[in-house]
C-alpha cells in the first residue's frame, strides 16, 4: 500500500515551490503571481476531483461515470478551441464530436476489448483511463488545429494556388493536414522511443507506488500509451476534417472570422 502523505509531508512538498518562485522573482520574470494562482487552482481542483471521485467510485453507477466523462469532454473541447485561437461559437459541436469520437473509440477499445473490467462500467477503470486519454488528446488537438489553420492563413497564396490548379478542398488542405498531424504525433513518438530510459511514465509509477507488481504496471503502461497515441491521431484528424465545412466558405476561401484574433 502507498505511504499516506501527512499534512506535514504535503507542506514540505509545497515548500519546494519556493525554489522556482525565488528564481522567477530574482530574474524578474513577472510570473510569480501566475505561478501561485496556478498552484492554488491545481490544489483546489484536485481536492474537488478527489472528493467527487470518492463518490463516483463508491456509487459505481455507469450514468454518473458517463456524466463525469461528458463533463471532461466539454471542458477539454473548450480548452482545445481556446488554445487553437478558434471561435468557440462556430466550432463547439463539431470539435466536440471529433474529440469525443477519437477518445471514446480508442478508450472503449482499451476498456471493453482489452481490459474487460467486471462490471464493464467499473468507474475505477473508466474514469481515469478516459481522463488520461483525453488529457493527451487535448494537447495534441490544440497543436494540430492551431498548426493547420494558422498554416493555411500564413500560406494563403499557396493554398489558393492549389485551388486554382484544380485541387478540391480536401486536396488543397492536404499539405497543411499532413504538417498538423505530424506536429501532433511527433512529441509522443519521441516520448515512446525514450520511455523507460529517460522517463518513468506516470501511470506505471502510480501503480507501483500503489503496490502493483512492476511487470503488471508495465503492461498497463504499454496499453495506455498505444491507446493514447491512437486517440491523439484519430481525434486530431477527425477534429480537422469535421471543422472544414465551418472554416471555409462555399468558394473554398478560408473564413477570417473563424479566428479569435482577426487580422
Amino acid at each position, binding site marked *: 500500500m502507498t505511504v499516506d502523505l501527512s499534512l506535514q509531508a504535503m507542506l514540505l512538498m509545497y515548500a519546494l515551490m519556493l525554489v522556482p518562485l525565488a528564481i522567477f522573482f530574482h530574474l524578474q520574470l513577472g510570473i510569480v503571481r501566475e505561478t501561485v494562482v496556478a498552484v492554488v487552482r491545481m490544489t483546489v481542483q484536485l481536492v474537488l476531483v478527489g472528493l467527487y471521485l470518492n463518490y463516483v467510485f463508491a456509487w459505481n453507477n455507469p450514468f454518473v461515470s458517463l456524466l463525469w466523462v461528458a463533463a471532461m469532454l466539454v471542458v477539454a473541447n473548450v480548452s482545445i478551441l481556446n488554445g487553437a485561437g478558434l471561435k468557440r461559437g462556430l466550432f463547439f459541436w463539431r470539435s466536440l464530436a471529433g474529440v469525443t469520437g477519437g477518445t471514446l473509440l480508442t478508450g472503449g477499445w482499451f476498456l471493453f476489448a482489452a481490459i474487460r473490467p467486471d462490471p464493464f462500467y467499473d468507474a475505477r477503470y473508466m474514469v481515469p483511463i478516459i481522463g488520461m486519454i483525453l488529457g493527451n488528446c487535448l494537447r495534441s488537438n490544440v497543436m494540430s488545429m492551431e498548426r493547420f489553420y494558422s498554416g493555411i492563413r500564413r500560406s494563403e*497564396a*499557396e493554398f*489558393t*494556388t*492549389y*485551388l*486554382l*490548379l*484544380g*485541387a*478540391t478542398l480536401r*486536396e488543397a488542405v492536404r499539405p497543411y493536414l499532413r504538417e498538423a498531424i505530424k506536429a501532433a504525433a511527433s512529441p509522443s513518438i519521441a516520448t515512446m522511443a525514450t520511455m523507460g530510459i529517460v522517463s518513468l511514465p506516470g501511470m506505471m509509477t502510480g501503480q507501483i507506488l500503489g503496490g502493483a507488481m512492476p511487470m503488471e504496471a508495465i503492461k498497463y503502461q504499454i496499453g495506455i500509451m498505444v491507446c493514447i497515441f491512437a486517440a491523439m491521431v484519430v481525434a486530431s484528424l477527425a477534429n480537422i476534417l469535421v471543422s472544414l465545412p465551418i472554416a471555409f466558405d*462555399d*468558394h*473554398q*476561401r478560408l473564413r477570417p472570422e473563424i479566428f479569435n484574433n482577426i487580422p
Partner: protein
Amino acid sequence: MIAFENIVLQVHGKTLLDKANLVVRPGEKAVVLGPSGCGKSSLFKCVVGALPLSGGAIAIDGMVLNAQTVGAIRSRIAYIGQEPVLGAERVREALLLPFSFKAHRKKRPSEQEVVGQIERLRLSADILEKTCARISGGEKQRIAIARALLLGKSIFLADEITSALDPASREAVVAELFRPGITLLSISHDPEWAKACNRKIAIADSQLREETP
C-alpha cells in the same frame, strides 16, 4: 468568354468598381490599365473566386460564377500572378503538381511534352532538377505559364507576368499566349505588351472603359 455584368468590387470598404460591365470574347487579348491600387489585381482574383464580389455577376463561357460552378471555372482559367507560387520544392514537382489532383490526373504530360513546353519559353531542361527557391523571378513566371499551358487552359489571367523577363523571354511568352485559341485578360505596365493586345481597358471612375487608340 469572360463577362462582367454590373459588378461591384469593394476592398477594405473602398468601392473600386461600381456596376461595371465588360465582355472579353474568345481569342481576344485584352490588357487592363490603371494606376496601382485601382483594383486590377482584385478584379482578377474575383474571376477565379478568390475574392468575393459585392454585387453583380461574372460569367465564364456562359457559366455564372457561384458555389456550384467555381470548381469548373477554376479548371478552365489559368491565373498567373506577378510573383507566382509554385507550391512544390523542385521545379519538376511544381510543373506536375496539378496532375496529382483528381481533376487532371488523366492528363499527365510526358517528359517530352514537359521539356518541349519549357523550351518554348526559353528555359532549359536543367531547370527541372532545381529547387524552386533557387530560380529567378522571371524563371518562376515562365514555369507558372508552362504549367498552365500543359494543363491545356484556354483562358489566361496574367498579372504583370513580364515584369521580371528580358526582351527575348518576353517574346517567347507573347508567342505562346497570343495564339488564336487563347483568351487573354492581362495587367501590364509594359508598353510593348499593351501594344500587342488588341483591346485596352482602363479602370476609371469605378468603371471598366474601353480605350480607343
